[in-house]
C-alpha cells in the first residue's frame, strides 16, 4: 500500500503549494491522477517518490511510515519507488551513454555485476536497440531517451512506479510503447503505479481508476480560513 495522508507541501516556508492532499494506491493497482498544470500534482508525486519532504502529513509505504526524505531515507525505501519524469532531457545525465544511464542505479547500489545482464534484458523491453545503447543523450530523440529513463526506473525492480507526465512530450506511438512496457512490467511483478498527467483519455484507458486532483484535497472550509 502506498498511502499519502493529509500531505501539505511546497517550496517556501509557510507558503505551501497545496494543503492536506490524500491519495492511496493499493498493491498492483494503477491510479491515474488528473489535474491542471501548476496545481501541485507533480510535487505530490515527488513526495510519493521520497524526493521532497512534505511540510505536514504522512507517507506510508507497505506499512512503513516514511520519516526521512532524499538522501536521508533508507536506501531500500528509496529504491522501492521508481520514478519517470516528464522531460527526459533534464532527467538524463548528459555524460552517460544510454547503457550506463540504465545501469546507473545498479552501480550506485553496489550491484555492478548484474548491470550488463539487466541492461540486455531491459533494452528490448522498452524498445531500444543495442546500437542506441552506445549513444549519449544528445544523439537520441526525446522518445528514445524517455525509453531509457523508463528502463532506468525499472532496473532495480521497484514495487512502486511513479510516472510524472511520462508521455506528455511524446508522440502517440511512443506513448503506446512506453505504456505497454510499464504494463508488461506490472504484470510480471505486480507493482503498483501512480501515473500523473492531464491527458484524461490516456489515463482512463491506462489506469484501473483515475482521481481528480480536487478530490484529493479536503473539502473547502468556511471562507476566511
Amino acid at each position: 500500500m502506498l498511502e499519502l495522508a493529509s500531505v501539505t507541501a511546497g517550496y517556501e516556508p509557510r507558503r505551501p503549494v497545496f494543503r492536506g492532499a490524500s491519495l492511496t494506491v493499493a498493491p498492483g493497482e494503477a491510479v491515474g491522477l488528473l489535474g491542471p498544470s501548476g496545481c501541485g500534482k507533480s510535487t505530490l508525486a515527488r513526495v510519493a517518490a521520497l524526493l521532497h519532504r512534505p511540510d505536514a502529513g504522512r507517507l506510508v509505504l507497505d506499512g512503513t511510515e516514511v520519516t526521512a526524505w532524499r538522501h536521508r531515507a533508507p536506501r531500500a525505501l528509496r529504491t522501492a519507488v521508481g520514478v519517470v519524469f516528464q522531460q527526459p532531457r533534464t532527467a538524463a545525465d548528459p555524460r552517460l551513454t544510454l547503457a550506463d544511464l540504465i545501469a546507473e542505479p545498479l552501480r550506485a547500489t553496489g550491484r555492478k555485476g548484474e548491470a550488463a545482464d539487466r541492461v540486455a534484458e531491459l533494452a528490448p523491453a522498452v524498445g531500444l536497440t543495442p546500437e542506441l545503447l552506445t549513444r549519449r543523450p544528445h544523439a537520441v530523440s526525446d522518445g528514445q531517451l524517455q525509453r531509457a529513463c523508463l528502463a532506468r526506473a525499472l532496473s532495480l525492480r521497484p514495487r512502486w512506479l511513479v510516472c510524472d507526465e511520462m508521455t506528455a512530450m511524446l508522440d502517440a506511438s511512443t506513448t503506446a510503447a512506453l505504456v505497454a512496457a510499464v504494463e508488461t512490467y506490472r504484470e510480471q511483478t505486480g507493482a503498483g503505479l501512480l501515473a500523473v498527467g492531464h491527458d484524461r483519455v490516456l489515463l482512463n484507458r491506462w489506469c484501473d481508476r483515475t482521481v481528480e486532483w480536487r478530490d484529493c484535497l479536503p473539502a473547502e472550509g468556511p471562507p476566511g480560513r
Partner: protein
Amino acid sequence: MADPRTHRLRLWTSALVVGAVVLAVLLVPPLVQLDEQAVDLSRKLLPPSWEHPFGTDDVGRDLLLRCVYGLRISLLVGLVAALVATVLGTAVGAAAGALGGWTDRTLMRLVDAFSSVPHLLLGIFVVALFRPGVWPVIASVAVTHWLSTARIVRSEVLSLRTRPHIEAAISGGASRRRVATRHLLPAVLPQAGLAAVLMVPHAMWHESALSFLGLGLPSHQASLGNLVQSARSSLLAGDWWPTLFPGLFLIVPTLALAGLAGVWRDRLNPRRRSELML
C-alpha cells in the same frame, strides 16, 4: 559571439603567443647556460643592440635573459597559485552547494569575510608571515583568489541539485558521495577549469604587484615585478628599455592567456556544451 574569422584569429594569436612563451621559459634556461645574475658594471644601462636585444640594466645584466627568467617565475607562481586556488574554491563551493543548510551558510560567510578584506592587503598579510620566497607568494595569491571559484561552483551545484537527473540518481539509491563525485563534480569541472585558466594571468599580476612593492620575491631574483621595480629609477633618467620590456613580458602573455580562456568560455555555452560532451 564574435564572427568566426576574428574568433579564429584570436584563438591562433593567443595560442601562438602562449606556445612561444612556454617554449621560451622551458627551453632557454637549460639551453643557453648563461647566468642571468651575472653583473658587469662596465656594461651598465646599454640600450638595445644586437648583443643585448633588450639592453642591460643598471648593473649590466642582460635584460632579455632576465625577462625570460622573470616570466618563468611569474608563470610558475601563476599556474601553481591558480591550481591551488581552484582546488580550494571547488572544494568549498561544492561542499556548500551540495550539503546546504548550516554548512552552506557558514562556508559562504567565510567567503564573504575573506572578500571583505582588500585582496592586496590580505596578500601582504600572508607574505609578511613568512620569509621572502616563491611559496609565500603562491600562498598569498591562492588565499586571495579562491573566493570567486567557490561562488561559481556553489551556484552551479545549487542549480544542478534540483535537476531531475540528480533526483533520478537519488531515487536510484545513489549515496551523497556518489551524487557529488559522479554527477555534480563532472558537471562543474569545465566551469572550474575555465576559472582556473582565467585566474593564471590574474595571479601573475598579483605576484608582480607584490614584487613591485618589494614584498614578493627577494629583489635579486629575476621576476617581472622585481624588474619593473628596479627599473623605476633609470626610467626617470630617460632609459626606457629596463621598464618597457619587462612590462611587455607581463602584458602580452597574460593577454594571450586571457584570450585562450575567452575562446574556451565561448565554447562553453549550453548548446555547444552538449555537442562537445563537456
